[in-house]
């Protein structure tokens, strides 16, 4: 059962992400990203991290993606123009874009190799371990990571102020 869930979620995640990157209309991209986040949450649950899953849905999807949506609608952006030239040129044209794509592929392979090599010694899924509860997380958060917590709240404050200042219409 777990295996099937994993592969299903994984498939959705990857396809949605590829489409996010590939879609022309930014509105479509945002929605597809929401779908991929949902799949990701599912994966978190499978990994026995319900807290992370809920945080993902509530904060990421509920707040951040909504913000993106607002901005997209505010700017009323046109769809991205099609690149010049025929399909061949579009695919294999020179320039940093395509070089970047190739490089990303290389990077993927690298990472895979790197992560793989490190993890051969770790055991597989262990169903015996009890799932950590919110209580556990809370205790650790406020004891070991108390300072980081407070720092993060300051960070959010700064970001808020910054965002307001930056996006403000200049007074005439």
């Amino acid at each position, binding site marked *: 059962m777990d295996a099937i869930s994993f592969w299903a979620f994984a498939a959705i995640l990857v396809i949605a992400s590829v489409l996010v990157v590939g879609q022309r209309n930014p509105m479509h991209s945002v929605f597809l990203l929401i779908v991929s986040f949902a799949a990701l949450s599912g994966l978190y649950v499978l990994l026995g991290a319900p807290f992370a899953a809920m945080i993902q849905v509530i904060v990421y999807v509920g707040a951040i993606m909504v913000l993106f949506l607002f901005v997209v609608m505010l700017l009323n952006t046109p769809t991205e123009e099609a690149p010049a030239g025929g399909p061949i040129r579009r695919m294999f044209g020179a320039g*940093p*874009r395509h*070089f*970047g794509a190739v*490089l*990303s592929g*290389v*990077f993927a392979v*690298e*990472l895979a*190799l*790197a992560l793989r*090599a490190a993890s051969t010694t770790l055991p597989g899924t262990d169903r015996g371990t009890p799932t950590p509860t919110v209580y556990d997380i809370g205790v650790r958060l406020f004891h070991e990571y108390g300072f980081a917590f407070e720092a993060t709240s300051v960070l959010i404050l700064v970001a808020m102020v910054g965002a307001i200042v930056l996006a403000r219409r200049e007074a005439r």
Partner: protein
Amino acid sequence: MSLLLIPLLPFVGFLVNATVGSRLSKSTSATVAVAAMGLSFGVAASVVWSLVHVAPVAGVRALDAVVYTWMQSGGLTIPVEFRVDPLASVMILIITGIGSLIHLYSTAYMHEETDGEYARYFSYLNLFAAFMLVLVLGASFPVMFVGWEGVGLCSYLLIGFWYTKSTAVEAGKKAFVVNRLGDFGFVLGMAAIFATFHTLDFQQVAGRVAQLPAETTVGILTGITLLLFLGATGKSAQLPLYVWLPDAMEGPTPVSALIHAATMVTAGVYMIGRNAVLFGHAPLTLDVVAVVGCLTALMAGTIGLVQNDIKRVLAYSTVSQLGYMFLAMGVGAFAGGIFHLYTHAFFKALLFLGSGAVIHALHGEQDLRRMGGLKRELPITYWTFLTGTLAIAGVPLLSGFFSKDEILGKTFASGHTVLWAVALVTAFLTATYMFRLLYLAFFGARRAGPEGAHGPDPHGHGPGAALRPHLHDAPPAMAIVLVVLAIGSVLAGYVGVPASLGGGNRFEHYLEPSFQAPTMTTIESVLTAAPPVTRSESAPPSESPETEMALMGASVAAALAGIGLASFIYLKRPTVADVLAERLSGLYRLLLGKYFVDEIYDALFVQPIKRVSTVFLWRGVDAGLIDGTVNSVGFAVRGSSAVLRRLQTGSVRAYAMSLFVGVVAIVGYFLWR
């Protein structure tokens, strides 16, 4: 200790006038400067008084004062130490005494300058005195050298005092550069002394040298002394480095009197006297010194015979008399040389200051061909000038007679008959040109001078003014000094009356210990000691009284002959001079052109050096190599930046790309490890 005050007082005077001088009134500046010198003289006199009452220690009579240790490195320790012994005592009295008089004279002579310039003049003059005192009081070579260089500097500053005049500036530079050549010899000599004797203190060097035998061939001592003598020729204007002294007359006349007559130029003579033991052990060098001195005296005498500028005549006269002093040192008569230095200081300063009074009265006229008949209008100046002229000619009963005679006597007695004859001829010439000067300036009618003759100097009122009938004689400050110096010119010689005339020659005996090495006993130092091997540190043996009288007669005859010749030509038959000049026109031009030595030097040394400097060093090395290297660095940066700036594409994606490439590379690197 009070010894330190002697150079310190003038130095303080310098500081005051140099820093706040431009804001002081002239009388304040003058008072500061003259008082500094006067006080210094007072202290010097008291120091000499105590010196005279100090018992000699190991044959040396001296008072020491150490200020602090200047350098200490390896085996070399140089303290800043001053020492006064009989020789130095004579020098400090001359410097402070005659120096004070000249400072006083200057207060009137320089009165037409602005306040700032007036103060600057006195600051330099005081500084000069301070350095000169350091030179003579120094107990070791380095301290003396500080003074040596310092007086050279002040000489440059004072010669070029009227710096808006290009000839003055050139003269100052010439003096400094030529001096430098001599200093080169001095420094090398100093280094050689340290290498040989491992000490630079005069007494220690003398002591160590005394233990060596005198050199009969060219050895290390001869080398050292020749190098030191080179320094002396530069500072004291002997062959071959005398060329700066006539040009130095561009400076104010009191400067010529103080620096280029009485004190700085005597530094070379003093230096040899200070190192009498060392020089005594190098007879070959002494021969060189004597010959150079004698030749210089003769050569300068001949040039002085035809010069038309009143100060030039006196300048060449100074070179000539310095030659006499070196002749004396060269034949071993160290005390004689110093004696002549002392008497010469009086009458030469007098002559220069007198000429200054003449120039002042004529509002800047210096050409003899435009003078004449000043005897009636400038009586004080005339009578004092006459006294000085008689003294320098060696007329009996005046100071110059005693000192010059002693030199001639000792020269003959040491066997240098040829040098004696040349010196005698020079004495004749001295009398001749000095009386020529006197007659042309003071006697006869006023001449208008030839066309195109050199006009008056900065503080003149134009050529017409000089011919106005009413001239004012020297103002009080100047007159007093002239009179005092005249009295000195007469009386100064009486401390050195030789035995043959009934005197005890106390001067020579007083100075004797200064020329001995410190290890000799008290008894020996009092006697005129018999020389150990060949002619070393003692004076040459005295002749019999008859010979001395004969020699004296000869020198008096030479002097009178010179006076007679000059009187004949310039009083009775003035046209004879012009006829002679035409008949012997080649010789005349040669003498007038000072044997063209300056031109020769220019062609041989100055022009080639200039050419090398311009073409090779300036264009080649400096502009080409050094500038080229520096500029090429700039070009390289510019070139590379022109290429590298293309990285700034302004595209965010390109930047992100470069970041990413880096990440991939690093991860790849760690992967491969």
